[in-house]
């Protein structure tokens, strides 16, 4: 990735983070207003309880049937902290096979992403777990690439003989800005989507050859990827201790 592209992506990321951070107090204020008793001074404790939500990405599962050259599995988990903040994590694994006339190799990787989500909608009640959220993640993937055989095609001088590059292991790091929504379709069962902007932080590692597909990140030869996920999740809930719920 060129320095120019890197600067562009960092600029987009910075602006996005700034917009997100600056919007949080507004939503937090709206939430606080809902959580504040009439005299405006006493704030009631968060009565929403605990929730651990586990989900699977349906788009990735569907893509596995469509693509013959890449496979991937992605899962997500989030845990409600308080004040509409969620700890969030995604993980998974995948592989890709490049079998073109002029380029042949395979790669595989697992990945993990850690970060947080902030729900930007006020709840209707403490039972309301539907959410529209924004979040940040840091992602990491150890990648294993096989040896590469390649031909340089040339119509004037003829193609070069097949040459090889040795296999290699390396890591990918990225930052991600995400936004989306999630609705409870049955008790504890959620469907939701996320749009994710992912920005590679160590693009120079891929200069020799960027993998076709990095599970969790997307195309390896792009400095930024925009990914769409559809999650089916199940939320396990339990109540907080010493919380007297007000009638909603």
């Amino acid at each position, binding site marked *: 990735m060129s320095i120019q592209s890197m600067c562009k992506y960092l600029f987009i990321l910075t602006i996005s983070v700034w917009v997100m951070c600056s919007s949080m107090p507004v939503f937090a204020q709206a939430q606080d207003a809902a959580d504040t008793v009439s005299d405006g001074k006493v704030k009631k404790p968060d009565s929403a309880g605990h929730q651990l939500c586990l989900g699977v990405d349906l*788009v990735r599962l569907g893509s596995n049937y469509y693509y013959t050259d890449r496979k991937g599995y992605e899962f997500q988990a989030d845990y409600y902290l308080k004040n509409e903040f969620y700890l969030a994590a995604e993980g998974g694994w995948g592989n890709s096979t490049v079998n073109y006339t*002029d*380029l042949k190799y395979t790669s595989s990787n697992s990945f993990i992403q850690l970060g947080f989500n902030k729900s930007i909608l006020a709840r209707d009640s403490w039972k309301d777990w539907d959410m529209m959220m924004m979040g940040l993640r840091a992602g990491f993937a150890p990648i294993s690439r096989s040896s590469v055989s390649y031909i340089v095609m040339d119509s004037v001088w003829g193609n070069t003989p097949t040459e090889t590059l040795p296999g290699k292991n390396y890591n990918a790091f990225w930052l991600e800005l995400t936004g989306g929504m999630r609705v409870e379709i049955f008790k504890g069962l959620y469907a*939701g989507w996320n749009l994710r902007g992912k920005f590679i932080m160590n693009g120079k590692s891929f200069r020799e050859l960027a993998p076709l597909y990095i599970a969790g990140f997307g195309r390896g030869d792009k400095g930024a990827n925009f990914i769409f996920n559809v999650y089916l999740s199940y939320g396990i809930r339990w109540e907080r201790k010493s919380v007297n719920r007000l009638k909603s």
Partner: protein
Amino acid sequence: MTRTAATLLLFCAMMWVACSQQRQPCLDPVTASLIVSSVHFKSDTSKIPVDSSLPSAVFYPVTVLPNDTNLYSSSSAFILSLSPDTGFCQWLFSPTRNGALDTISFYYQRRLEFLSNACGFIYFYNLDSVRTTHKAIDSADILNATVNNNVNTKHVQIFIHPNY
């Protein structure tokens, strides 16, 4: 609300999958282009070369492969390529279609470059030297030694004898 959201989710997912492709199309130039310009001096005392617009220049790659001849009309800039297999290659050149042929020899270092999975690998080059015979060509200079897939850079300048 829930049913609408679920339908929308499913629709978006299907659209996303349906719009994907197997191998992405390659949008980058996949050949490192060597741009050669022809110039001449207007007089023996002139110090500044001017472009020579050659009426029907021809270039032949010296290769064992049956290749098309590169024919140019009224041009002063020619796009050639270097052999990716070795560090040396030759082109035959004449400023006119049936004129005497000069040999232009290019000596260079190769550098393997990965463009993308769509385009594969390509060789970029660094020119070491250029030598020519002297039927129509007086001499040759390297203007820019780095030959890559940027087609807007002139790399070599050949000086044509004034009587051409």
